[in-house]
């Protein structure tokens, strides 16, 4: 009896390990495919039907075109600028909002908290928001990507909860020493809540890196396009003139490179985040745990 039980269990263990191993390969393979294809010869890429295990003929042509494409370089620059300015601005707004709402003796605290939290459950919708952003004069401006999404109420609540957990004694001693609220916030609350702040900063940063939709509805000038929007043109709308960034006299040349350029663009835009995420994943995991504990 005992033997058959442990046999079944051992079988389960083996199958489990194999199943999970296969799943892991499935997670990796699509990007591996792109990586292999991106280093291949253009002609081979176009004619190949099937899976990639290694590059088909080694060639850096794809990357040469991608790195020379002004749209992609511009996209990178724009995304980086938006990310830095945007994340800083978001963190500033979120932090002061969270601090304010974490104060215990605010007279209007309840009503303001309700005012803020209500927006998580109901909103104007796509079109009214779009018209408001236009009406405020942000159309075709970088700030249309930053201002309307300055505060994520969810993040604000998580941070507010974090601030509320700071021991009162720290507050008290600061007050005795004559500190005002700004001093308390910047000298005590933020340093003590470093972990939470790091997590929320990362959340904002990743969302700026991946964002494309706001840019697609608010921006008209190509030179303002962030990276993901450029990628969308290359990968999805498939506009040939954009894949090479140059108006080619020879159209067949562009379509030859088109396929290869897609693979190279994917690699070029994903590698930065892939290099960073293993190191910061523990912050994200913590962030999810924090968010799930109702604030």
């Amino acid at each position, binding site marked *: 009896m005992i033997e058959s039980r442990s046999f079944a269990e051992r079988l389960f263990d083996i199958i*489990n*390990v194999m199943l999970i191993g296969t799943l892991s390969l499935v997670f990796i393979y699509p990007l591996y495919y792109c990586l292999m294809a991106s280093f291949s010869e253009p002609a081979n890429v176009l004619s190949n039907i099937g899976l990639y295990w290694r590059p088909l003929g080694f060639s850096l042509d794809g990357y040469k075109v991608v790195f020379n494409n002004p749209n992609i370089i511009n996209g990178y620059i724009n995304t980086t600028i938006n990310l830095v300015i945007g994340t800083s601005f978001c963190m500033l707004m979120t932090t002061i909002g969270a601090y*304010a709402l974490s104060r215990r003796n605010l007279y209007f605290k309840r009503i303001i908290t309700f005012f803020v939290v209500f927006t998580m459950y109901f909103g*104007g919708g796509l079109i009214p928001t779009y018209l*408001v952003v236009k009406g405020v004069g942000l159309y075709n401006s970088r700030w249309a990507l930053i201002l309307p999404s300055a505060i994520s109420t969810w993040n604000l609540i998580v941070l507010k909860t974090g601030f509320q957990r700071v021991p009162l004694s720290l507050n008290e001693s600061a007050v005795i020493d004559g500190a005002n609220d700004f001093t308390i916030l910047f000298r005590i609350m933020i340093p003590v809540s470093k972990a939470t702040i790091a997590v929320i900063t990362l959340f904002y940063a990743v969302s700026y890196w991946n964002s494309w*939709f706001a840019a697609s509805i608010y921006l008209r000038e190509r030179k303002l396009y962030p990276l993901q929007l450029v*990628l969308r043109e290359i990968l999805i709308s498939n506009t040939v003139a954009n894949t090479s960034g140059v108006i080619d006299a020879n159209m067949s040349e562009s379509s030859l490179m088109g396929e290869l350029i897609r693979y190279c663009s994917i690699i070029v835009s994903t590698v930065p*985040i892939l290099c960073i995420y*293993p190191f910061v994943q523990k912050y994200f*995991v913590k962030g999810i745990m924090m968010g799930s504990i109702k604030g």
Partner: protein
Amino acid sequence: MNKDIESVINKKLLINTSPRHGRSNMSGGRKWTVIKKDLHSNKYVYLMLVPVLIFYVVFRYVPMFGVVMAFQDYKPALGIFKSEWVGLENIIGFLTGPYAWRVVRNTLLINIYQLIFAFPCPIVFALLLNELNSRIYKKVVQTISYMPHFISLVVVCGLIRIFTQTNGTINAIASVFRVDFGNLLSRASYFRTIYVVSGIWQSIGWGSIIYIATLSSVDPNLHEAAAIDGAGRFRRIWNITLPALIPIITVQLIMQLGRIMSEGYEKVILLYNPSIYETADIISSYVYRYGLEGMNYSVGTAIGLFNSIINIIILILANQTARKISEESLW
């Protein structure tokens, strides 16, 4: 001096000057004094709230009032105050029109498929990972499984296009079995499968984080005691592990239901094309295409409002049901 410090501390820390104490019983004069005191002692806090509140008013509440456009025949030239009032005409026009059934059906179906197929996957994945014996293997797999989550949606949809095209990988594999699917993204009947399966690929690892964390907080003594009593692994999973997960599963389920009407439009917009509108077009993508791009602002707003209201109703219903059945709920 002592009295000063005391009063400052008292003000800041709520002792005996709590504005909540019998606030509603106070006479008008007393209340006003309390408010004035609060504004003074918390002046920097209120200063901090000013930009935050401006943000919420301008970018969250003004659009909420813009919802009245749903009941008008909005013309940009006339603006919101002068456009003609048409009441329920916009929404009734939509609901009786040719596309209403299609988009509502698609929205509901895609979400139901997600609930049935995609929602359990992170849970099962977490359970399987939990049964692994090697810590290192588990850690490595977890890190790998997070990767698809960090890939941007645009790239994921680009990958989908690459793999589903006529000469793509899926057809290459299928040709081994003498099957040819053609360009999968142009066949309406495949769309929901592609959408859900790619969603699982992207979110199974990330979604399992919260379940794995819950599982690791299960008391190992329970498992030991059960093992001594002769419970095999599967019995232990059924009687110990799963019950530990039920609260968090309930909360996640409610949150998922609350997102039904609003989720996924970015992915749909990136993946769809006119030949598959029949199964791919959902309410939000229709609002985007017809209302925003097509500049039918009033009707678009009306449909969006319709969407939000249904969203709230589903969320409330889900929460009430959860409260009745178990002790877990969102509020």
